[in-house]
């Protein structure tokens, strides 16, 4: 299991050091600093073995978090734990920075004592941690016996993510379908790979212990309902809307997985506040919001001509926002002239790229940029690698075609029904890695 956990600043100074196992000595702290943080070459693996001791690390801004062990631990668990640790810290004191860590070191030690015992991860849900690990630290004495046992039963219980007795005057639900669409396209316009990775993020402000059921236009369910040919309702829902094929999805721990496995229905008791309900991935019938058509011509050894056309491919009534096209330039670029029809374009020498920004663009439109790049003559025999042209944007629909069909709320003990809950749904499609080779 995890033998110890260290947090370093960018210079390699230790900010937090907690050792759980006897086989980890103080020299482990230095070994990681010398061999990884101060290593002459860039680290080429997140797992390093130094003298039969294994180090796992992740970096957040310029802070290094390292787990050390001498045993054959579950490597995936260690990284998942480190991510979780970052989430917990972030929810307690915001950004993970040297200053924040130093300011909260007592709290961090307290958290580390609670969420790792003898190197075994324990309950790490911020919701329940915050009920008894507080920055004031004195809450312990003023709790009644009932409160205490409520805390412990929540920490160890089946529904560790939600406490009892939550009350809201207005029961409200916010549902965001956030998708990032990824594309790799050949210069000839052939799709090499494309997929959407989506997240359903929820903010729930509901009283009591509500039971929720979430439905979407998942092909498997809709086909099932259609095949059964059951009621008129099923007929209605399948006729108009199109269903989508979901390759795979993963759920927040509140979702009953066995129920999903058997009936493919998503039912859960939601955590309070904001959380990620599910993640999914689709690869079929993706709506690619933009098409990039590059044209690069080398004119002699000292000049390049670049022309890039972008075409928007969605309903004309919708507006894409925050559009940015990044055209890489060779390292030996000496000067650039750009002309674009829309938006603003600039050559950024420090980033070796021409950055073209457009604030808004409606569907079924087209725009283009052309640039002349002057090059310094070099002796470097190595050819320029021609990195792909990348794009960023935001569109108000889900490129995978996912639609929320329903979100039902049941709370039998309190007197509010599904109709009383105010629900908001929003779709946002963003660019993930959206690249066209040139």
């Amino acid at each position, binding site marked *: *299991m995890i033998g110890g956990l260290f947090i370093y600043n960018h210079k390699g100074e230790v*900010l937090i*050091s907690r050792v*759980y196992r*006897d086989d980890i000595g*103080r020299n482990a*702290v230095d070994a990681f600093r010398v061999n990884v943080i101060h290593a002459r070459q860039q680290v*080429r*693996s*997140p*797992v390093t*073995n130094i003298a*039969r001791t*294994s180090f796992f690390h992740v970096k957040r801004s310029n802070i290094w978090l390292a787990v050390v062990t*001498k*045993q*054959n631990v*579950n*490597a*995936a668990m260690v*990284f*998942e734990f480190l*991510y979780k640790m970052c989430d917990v810290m972030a929810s307690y004191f915001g950004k993970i920075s040297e200053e924040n860590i*130093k*300011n909260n*070191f*007592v709290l961090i*030690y307290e958290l580390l*004592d609670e969420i790792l015992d*003898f190197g*075994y991860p*324990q309950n790490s849900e911020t919701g329940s941690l915050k009920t008894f690990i507080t920055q004031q*630290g*004195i809450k*312990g*004495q003023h*709790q009644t016996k009932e409160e*205490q*046992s409520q*805390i*412990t039963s929540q*920490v*160890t*219980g*089946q529904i560790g993510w939600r406490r009892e007795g939550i009350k809201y005057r207005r029961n409200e639900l916010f549902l965001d379908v956030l998708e990032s669409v990824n594309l790799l396209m*050949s210069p000839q316009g052939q799709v*090499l*790979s494309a997929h959407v990775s989506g997240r359903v993020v929820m903010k729930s402000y509901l009283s009591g212990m509500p039971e929720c059921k979430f439905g979407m236009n998942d092909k498997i369910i809709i086909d099932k309902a259609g095949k059964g040919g059951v009621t008129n309702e099923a007929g209605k829902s399948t006729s108009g809307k199109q269903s989508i094929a979901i*390759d*795979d*999805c*993963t*759920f927040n*721990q509140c979702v*009953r*997985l*066995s129920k999903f496995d058997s009936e493919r229905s998503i039912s859960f008791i939601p955590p309070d506040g904001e959380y990620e309900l599910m993640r999914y*991935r689709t690869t079929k019938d993706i709506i690619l919001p933009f098409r990039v058509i590059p044209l690069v011509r080398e004119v002699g050894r000292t000049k390049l001509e670049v022309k890039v056309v972008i075409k928007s491919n969605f309903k004309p009534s919708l507006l894409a926002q925050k559009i940015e096209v990044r055209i890489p330039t060779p390292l030996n670029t000496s000067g650039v002239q750009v002309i674009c029809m829309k938006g603003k374009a600039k050559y950024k020498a420090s980033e070796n790229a021409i950055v073209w920004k457009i604030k808004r663009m409606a569907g079924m439109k087209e725009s283009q940029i052309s640039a002349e790049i002057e090059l310094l003559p070099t002796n470097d025999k190595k050819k320029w690698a021609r990195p792909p042209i990348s794009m960023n944007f935001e569109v108000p629909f889900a490129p995978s075609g996912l639609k929320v069909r329903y979100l039902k709320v049941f709370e039998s003990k309190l007197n509010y029904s599904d109709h009383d809950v105010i629900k908001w749904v929003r779709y946002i499609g963003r660019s993930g*890695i959206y690249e066209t*080779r040139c």
Partner: protein
Amino acid sequence: MTDSKYFTTNKKGEIFELKAELNNEKKEKRKEAVKKVIAAMTVGKDVSSLFPDVVNCMQTDNLELKKLVYLYLMNYAKSQPDMAIMAVNSFVKDCEDPNPLIRALAVRTMGCIRVDKITEYLCEPLRKCLKDEDPYVRKTAAVCVAKLHDINAQMVEDQGFLDSLRDLIADSNPMVVANAVAALSEISESHPNSNLLDLNPQNINKLLTALNECTEWGQIFILDCLSNYNPKDEREAQSICERVTPRLSHANSAVVLSAVKVLMKFLELLPKESDYYNTLLKKLSPPLVTLLSGEPEVQYVALRNINLIVQKRPEILKQEIKVFFVKYNDPIYVKLEKLDIMIRLASQANIAQVLAELKEYATEVDVDFVRKAVRAIGRCAIKVEQSAERCVSTLLDLIQTKVNYVVQEAIVVIRDIFRKYPNKYESIIATLCENLDSLDEPDARAAMIWIVGEYAERIDNADELLESFLEGFHDESTQVQLTLLTAIVKLFLKKPSETQEETHTYTHTNISPSFDSDNPDLRDRGYIYWRLLSTDPVTAKEVVLSEKPLISEETDLIEPTLLDELICHIGSLASVYHKPPNAFVEGSHGIHRKHLPIQHGSIDTGESPVSAGPAAPIEQAQSVIPSQGDLLGDLLNLDLGPPVNVPQQSSMQMGAVDLLGGGLDSLVTVCMFIFLYLLSLFPQIWLPAVKAKGLEISGTFSRRQGQMYMDMTFTNKALQHMTDFAIQFNKNSFGVIPTTPLPIHTPLMPSQSIEVSLPLNTIGPVMKMDPLNNLQVAVKNNIDVFYFSGLIPLNIFFVEDGKMERQVFLATWKDIPNENELQYQIKECHLNADTVSGKLQNDNIYTIAKRNVEGQDMLYQSLKLTNGIWILAELRIQPGNPNYTVKHPRLSL
């Protein structure tokens, strides 16, 4: 107010000042001081001298202060054991606190203080906490047992904490169950054979129930534990799989990987034809792909594991090659791993896409990545014959870029392509030769020289080219020197000079540099060539220009037994390093090797070499082994004076024998043991070279110092060297399995032979064989998998402690029912009782008693088999007619 100020302290008199502050009357001041102490401790300053002052602050009702003091205690208690005792009272008191959080805190901290005296005081509070009404305290106490075990294992056993821990598996709270499982798994790792966890179907059911309810971490502990369970049949395996598959949709990648591990292991037990098997395979693919959309570190762990899964079961991901295409912004460690998997998945169906990608990668920036991409193109050419032409032209394009390291890497892979497809792509040699000057790496130079030598007859200026290398002969690396030497000889043999004299001068001037070398290999090779050429050029031609064996299609494959072991470690560090745990873990942990479960019942006829062998080859192999009778006859002709005679001549009276359960009258053979041990004296050829592409295996079984061995001689009668040996036994009557992998680590060169002694034990799965002592073996090397079978002489199963107490013997003998009795006679044996008894004793058959009845010697004998079965025998010796009566009880099975 911020805490960062504690990190900045004035150096001088710091400790002194802190001491004063720690003894301050005001509570707030004391707390501030303890914080400063902890900050100093974190930075690595030694603040152990403040021990008594800090411990004084422990008696407080301020929880935050208490936690800080505990943190300090955990760090320094070991260096100040006497002082640490001061804290005991406070711990014991806290364990009685009405607040469960404080009880748990006390028991948690106490377990982290590794001082013997404190541990003694820990037992009572721990016992109470294990039965605490609050689950939070119980789950903490469960982990505390593991802590205590790490400090003092004996105490944990003596105090009965292991039983309490086992009881917690049935706890009503899922988190308590998960922690108990984690603690028990860790403890049982240090006692590999203790069966501490006692995984039986009831317990498994409890674990599966808890799996649905506990935290993500608890699910990981439970799944990792489940993967160590061996279901008794395929139905149980299937029902566990059904309950584990929903975990594949968990957001935590470690839960997913641990579930994959359980499924990959149990898949071994499911029949391949079944629908469920195929559904399960289909279900495995999407979650594995989803892991690749996680954070880069998890992607890395996932990719290392996918690399193993793809080798074990390529069908799972064969459709998914696109997801392994490299993204421009992937971290380098992800890129390199993806590339590896791409090559493994490359096939005729997707080769066009793969090649286009690889060509793209070859123009990237990172040198390692580019080299690997170029190498990958070469491997595609070798793997998919249809694509070879396209690969070669891609490589040529890359050579045209003149990027130094790309050119060199390309030349190395082109050499391999030439080896695979001789006489096909020589037209490109001219292009290669253009780049001669830019080659500065030994690998590339050697490859180029090899190509020139191999195709010397088609290169007009081959002699000039080689001469250019000769100039700096002594500065080259050995690899280049050796290749150069051979290339020169090849050139000479292919383009002989006109006259004898020229020959002489040519070879002498060119080979002679090697004569002065310090390297014996090089010098010897030089002399050998020189003598060969000067005495018999015709033979030289046969030797040097002999036909070369083709190179294999797949490279870099993990050796199958190791692969199987790694599959059992999916998700763990072992799977990331691709090394078994004992290669990087010290001490007792992880020494116990894991094996994939083996399917019961019918022999698996699948392509996987692990699951024993197809039946047909074994039958063939069997015919190779001389029938017992013949062999025995031969042996006896050698006049070794065995205590018994040839079986054909002995008249047998057989009772209804039920020896190993199920009418094993083949144990008729019964007491074949008496003479079968002779077999062990002479190695037999088990696997003749003609049946195994040049590999010959002969061997014997023996028992030395209480350990069974399979002594084998491997002889390579083929022209190519052999590597990657591995051995596997089919299930057999005695559960014989090798205890170590086959200890052949160096390649076996042509006409070389190697003797190995493989230690065996009998803890493997049992299946009745016919004849009983038949053992089916599969041996694998880089060329193929071969099957043979051999008869294990029964005497190697006779354990040393087979001497039964006289009284016990008497009692048992009487209890044997008559129908279990078997008698037969052995004629024409001319030995007296003492000689017989002495000979038998050598094989662990002990004489318990001897008496003389009516002129006949009666010997009473006992022996014990490794599987715990006792065999008792009465031997009546009459001159010319020893009458052998065998009785045996079944004691255990």
